[in-house]
């Protein structure tokens, strides 16, 4: 059993262009253009020079997508427990506390209801900056509740995803969020509730193996890394160079896994169009 192949569902490091750089966060990692914070925010955090899509936090994403003032957050009080009393180099409790401080969020997902160009929907938005957007019990529970609310209210669910995978500090319970959220989607499906999944950089591992790929319509922002196993682990396994856009939205689109790649500036209008279409069939 000496040389086992590692098949973790978690890719091992933050993906290359989401924080690994030592540059100022407002400097474009692709073309080095630099922007003032207000400039960048006004341009939806897209590089005006080269089109690079910077990461967007959950709160800012909600501002970008929802009609002003329409968002009503739900299940905001949910917090992670520490069922395994998990301790590696530091304790899980400490990591959580740090993430809360850094992001101002209770966990890696915001959930609630809102309107997009006047169309009601249930919404989940993930934030990669909270422990790499990892899915533990809180993310799983919020997503499951979002599905239940969508059914109760008879409105579509829009899910904006960004995640490195399962939150391994919750051990097997983090894996259980995968089937739990799949079941939640299946309940929506039986109730004929539309589900639109939006993949943003990066959406990988446990997220791809659960609800993120189960949308009626699945779209991604340009450049989104969306792979089950991360490029580093795949390369380690196959021991050869990977295609340049391996695992990216552009490659996934060619291989038939995406309905569309949508520029961030078109995301709101695209979602509104989809919500209108799904509404007019009912």
């Amino acid at each position: 059993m000496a040389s086992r192949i590692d098949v973790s569902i978690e890719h091992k490091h933050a993906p290359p262009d989401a924080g690994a750089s030592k540059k100022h966060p407002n400097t474009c990692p692709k073309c080095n253009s630099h922007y003032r914070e207000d400039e960048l925010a006004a341009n939806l955090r897209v590089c005006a020079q080269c089109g690079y899509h910077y990461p967007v936090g959950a709160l800012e994403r909600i501002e970008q997508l929802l009609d002003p003032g329409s968002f009503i957050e739900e299940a905001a009080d949910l917090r992670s427990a520490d069922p395994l009393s998990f301790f590696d180099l530091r304790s899980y409790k400490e990591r959580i506390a740090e993430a809360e401080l850094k992001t101002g969020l209770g966990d890696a997902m915001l959930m609630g209801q809102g309107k997009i160009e006047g169309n009601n929907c249930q919404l989940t938005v993930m934030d990669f900056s909270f422990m790499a957007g990892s899915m533990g019990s809180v993310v799983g529970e919020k997503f499951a509740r979002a599905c239940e609310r969508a059914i109760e209210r008879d409105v579509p669910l829009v899910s904006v995803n960004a995640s490195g995978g399962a939150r391994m500090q919750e051990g097997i319970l983090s894996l259980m969020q995968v089937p739990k959220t799949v079941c939640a989607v299946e309940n929506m499906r039986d109730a004929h509730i539309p589900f639109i999944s939006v993949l943003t950089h990066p959406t990988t591992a446990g997220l791809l193996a659960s609800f993120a790929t189960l949308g009626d319509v699945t779209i991604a922002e340009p450049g989104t890394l969306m792979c089950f196993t991360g490029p580093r682990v795949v390369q380690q396994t196959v021991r050869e160079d990977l295609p340049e856009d391996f695992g990216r939205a552009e490659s996934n689109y060619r291989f038939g896994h995406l309905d569309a790649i949508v520029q961030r500036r078109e995301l709101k209008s695209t979602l509104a169009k989809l919500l209108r279409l799904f509404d007019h069939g009912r």
Partner: protein
Amino acid sequence: MAGELELRLRDRLAKLKQLHLPGAGVSDEVRRIEHQLAEVDTGDERSEDEIWRSVEFARHPDRPYTLDYVERLVADWIELHGDRARMDDPAIVSGLGSFAGRTVAVIGHQKGRGDAVQRVKRNFGMSNPEGYRKAMRVMEIADRHGFPVITLVDTPGAYPGVAAEQHGQGGALAASQAAMARLKVPTVACVIGEGGSGGAIAFALANRVLMQQFAIYSVISPEGCASILWRDAGQARKAAAAFRPDAVHCLELGVIDSIIPEPEGGAHTNFDEAAKLLGQSIRAALGELGKMNGEELRRDRRNRFRSHGVIAS
């Protein structure tokens, strides 16, 4: 360890009996915990050594694999091949046969035994997306004709290859679970070796999830966890002791419904006995499920997974 586990289970049970979590299927959970309490045997908190023994046994090259159990438990076996699109994935076997007098579908990961050639041929039990698509095809046949579905889980994980990614590994794992969530027939999943993360869960969304005594079930391999969190794959034993992939821990968390005993010294020491014990447990589980109709089975299954997770709020 039963002292500790028993206390936790009783504690959880007491809490659940007071609580009303929305949609959490509390009464099912209560029933399951009562069942677990009856099953727990006595002992102490598992040591690092004991947990690592499970890892070693679960990966033991002589451990019985899916087809070893099929051979011993299923009559009139006919394997069904191919995803009807691109390939027949040898890392997954699926088929129909007669179990305890009734036709069932069996789907499982399959490792190769013996030399490197055989093991590579089965890709070490690591499936490509096409393997999950084959399995979904067989599930659909079973559903339409009313055959219970038995899955045998034994994989280090889904295959981390280039083509696997290009052909939609993540989506296939999700789709396989969705297919299982949809079935109107009784389903029983058994972790018989390595229950490795996404590759395992793709076959484990069942009404009852059983686990052999020395099997493991985890979100990540000990080596993978160690190399991420300790930045040193050599710390695998320590990682395993931290996230505890052994059967007792999984039972403690309510992730599995019961532990299937193995022969003294592990399943690899006596295939026939291991198969007999596995067969008895599956039969018992199917017996319990026999009373439910299709809609109830679906609901039972989804409620089962709805309750997983621990939240502090």
